[in-house]
């Protein structure tokens, strides 16, 4: 039975996230964008608001509120500060991955600390130079020792790499071809041999850090192995599929923020004696934003719902991500157009949205990768004749 209403709980999480966004994130957002750095206070406050474990069971310190709640919360926080939000997305996903694949020790040791903020945030160490969207080409190795494992290699594009307290690291544990032979490890941030790189200078998301991480003779115990040896690829896939819902929700929030700014501007400002909102060009821009972001919202919530119902959602997550990130980018462009000269000023507000949203078409799988996933699936689906 079709029903688009959020549940009580979903609405409650959304409200909590909205209050947090307005009271904590919004006031700090411009400064964070200017100064860069890592949003320690924001994230601590997010943890106490429960937003580091929205879809984590309460027994493990999360809200146990499900995937739709998670998506709604991320969209709210992203409207105020996209940079803090990306760190939140990754932390939530790290928690989910450990809760899902971890053994009881791992679950009870790490997940509550992620939710409480004790570990600051979590991070994924998957990408490598030349193996951005091709895990088969992975070079990082983990070799068995009598004391456990020693990890050698270099990872790239690690969100929160400067400060994360827990890293989920993928490394080859055998020479099996393709993705077989990849295993997953849980590596605390203070492990010797885990060397954090300098943060990248980026176009936007200046309040989040993106670094390389080098592993030089990084020794971990046998308990560091997450899931079975050689079964690391499914872990990565779950992290990425779920991550797409998070990024779609984030980009939606950015697009909505830009649209709201443009809408207020259009209603409040006049040009040549009449309100901008009377100009059809402005009306069109707002109408197209509203239409496309509305569609994006539904695609995103649909993917979240399917994941929550524990049915296959990979294709729907890809569709949600490619559509939402690209339409949100277009929406930020139209918002700039509505503001005119002020659209490209920091003072106008929307130029930060434009810079922040642009990366969402790239990380967690570029738009091109999403299109490959989608078209592959279409081939299957229609061959079954529906």
């Amino acid at each position: 039975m079709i029903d688009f209403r959020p549940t009580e709980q979903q609405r409650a999480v959304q409200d909590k996230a909205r209050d947090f966004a307005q009271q904590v994130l919004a006031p700090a957002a411009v400064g964070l964008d200017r100064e860069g750095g890592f949003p320690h206070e924001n994230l601590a406050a997010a943890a106490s608001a429960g937003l580091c474990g929205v879809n984590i069971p309460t027994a493990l310190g999360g809200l146990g509120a499900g995937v739709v709640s998670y998506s709604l919360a991320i969209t709210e926080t992203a409207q105020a500060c996209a940079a803090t939000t990306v760190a939140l997305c990754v932390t939530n996903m790290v928690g989910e991955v450990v809760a899902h694949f971890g053994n009881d020790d791992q679950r009870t040791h790490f997940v509550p600390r992620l939710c409480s903020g004790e570990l600051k945030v979590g991070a994924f160490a998957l990408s490598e130079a030349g193996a951005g969207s091709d895990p088969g080409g992975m070079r990082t190795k983990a070799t068995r020792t009598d004391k456990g494992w020693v990890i050698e290699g270099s990872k790239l594009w690690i969100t929160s790499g400067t400060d994360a307290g827990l890293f989920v690291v993928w490394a080859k544990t055998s020479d099996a071809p393709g993705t077989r032979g990849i295993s997953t490890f849980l590596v605390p941030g203070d492990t010797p041999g885990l060397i954090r790189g300098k943060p990248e200078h980026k176009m936007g998301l200046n309040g989040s850090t993106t670094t390389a991480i080098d592993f030089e003779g990084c020794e971990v115990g046998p308990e560091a192995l997450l899931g079975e040896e050689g079964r690391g690829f499914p872990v990565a896939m779950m992290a990425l599929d779920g991550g797409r819902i998070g990024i779609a929700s984030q980009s939606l929030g950015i697009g909505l923020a830009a649209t709201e700014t443009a809408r207020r501007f259009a209603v409040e400002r006049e040009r040549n004696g009449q309100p901008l909102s009377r100009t059809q060009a402005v009306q069109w821009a707002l109408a197209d934003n509203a239409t496309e972001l509305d569609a994006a919202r539904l695609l995103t919530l649909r993917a979240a719902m399917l994941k929550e119902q524990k049915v296959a959602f990979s294709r729907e997550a890809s569709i949600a991500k490619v559509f939402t990130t690209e339409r949100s980018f277009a929406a930020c462009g139209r918002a700039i157009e509505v503001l005119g000269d002020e659209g490209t000023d920091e003072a106008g507000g929307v130029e930060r949205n434009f810079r922040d949203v642009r990366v969402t078409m790239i990380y967690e799988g570029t738009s091109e990768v999403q299109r490959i996933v989608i078209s592959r699936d279409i081939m299957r689906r229609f061959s079954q004749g529906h």
Partner: protein
Amino acid sequence: MDLSLTEEDELLRDTVRELGQQRVRPHAIEWDEARALPEGLMAELGEMGLTAMELPEDEGGTALSAVAAAALVGELAAADGALALRVLRHNTFGLGHVMLGLADDVREAELPAMAEGRVEVAWALSEQGSTTDPGSIQTRAVRDGDHWVLDGHKQHVVGGATAGRIVVLATTAKGDSTADDIVALLVDGDADGLTRGEPVRTMGMRAAGTAHLRFEQVRVPASRMLGEPGQAWGHAMELLDRARIGMAALACGIGRGALQVSTAYAKEREQFGKPIASFQAIQWKLADMATTLEAAWLLTMRAAWLCDSGQEFAAAASRAKIAATTAATRGCSEALQVHGGYGYTREFPVEKALRDARWCESSGGTNEVPRTLVSQAIAARYTG
């Protein structure tokens, strides 16, 4: 939050999908060439309840929700847009207006044949260009005893070439008319003084039997006025809002049908020794079609759900209509491109899909109207 249909609705949708694939799609191109649907087809659909989708059961209807009705229209459209359009107009405008305003006694006599699809009901509003305000209605209705006398022209009446009944919106005023002057009359297809033009040579929806109608001294019993004087315009606007949901569903269906045949084609057709489905350029097209069409479909379902749950849905329906018709036109054009030269021939269904989709995009006064509605809704949302 839940995006699934009820079990009965799913069952019904699968039946209609089956019907579309078996009974409709094989003939769609031939109907398009003939610029007409075969006689009795509506009655045939009537047996499945498709000609009285939203009527209450005690009136011989299927009592479907807007969600379910939209799903069925989408399935029909995936097989043939023109047929889906005829069904949509008959249900939403024809029966919709009859239910809003036809006096009980007349309705008891008329409704059964309409509900069974034996008598198709067309709806005539537009005159010169697209009619969006009462002032532009020139067709006059003059009271003469217990009859109304109709004089004027109506343009682009879908199904007008053959419909057994036509709902006609006319004005009782001499000069510029306001909403209060508009009346709606249920006119007999064979009434004296009604002349139907040749089916309009439209680019798309050729089998929809769109015609211009001329009314000269057509006498209509007063008992066949729909609603009270002054209600007709409000009813028309209400029906137009609802119809945008249906038009969005229809466009999504056309696009989905084109995506389906293109995907099958891309997997069979080889070039440079490989199926063209293995080329990124083709994969991109299929991926973008699927993405934009699913986005539009969710907008459509949301608008239908708002309508079912008694909430304000006009702006949502407008968004759905914009997104669906543009996605369908673009998608069908890509579908044609995937087919290469074959796509441009009438042996393959995609050129027709493109013509039908483009018709949807500019039907009912283009997307300018819904865009304006959407932008007004946004500006309105503004609070301090």
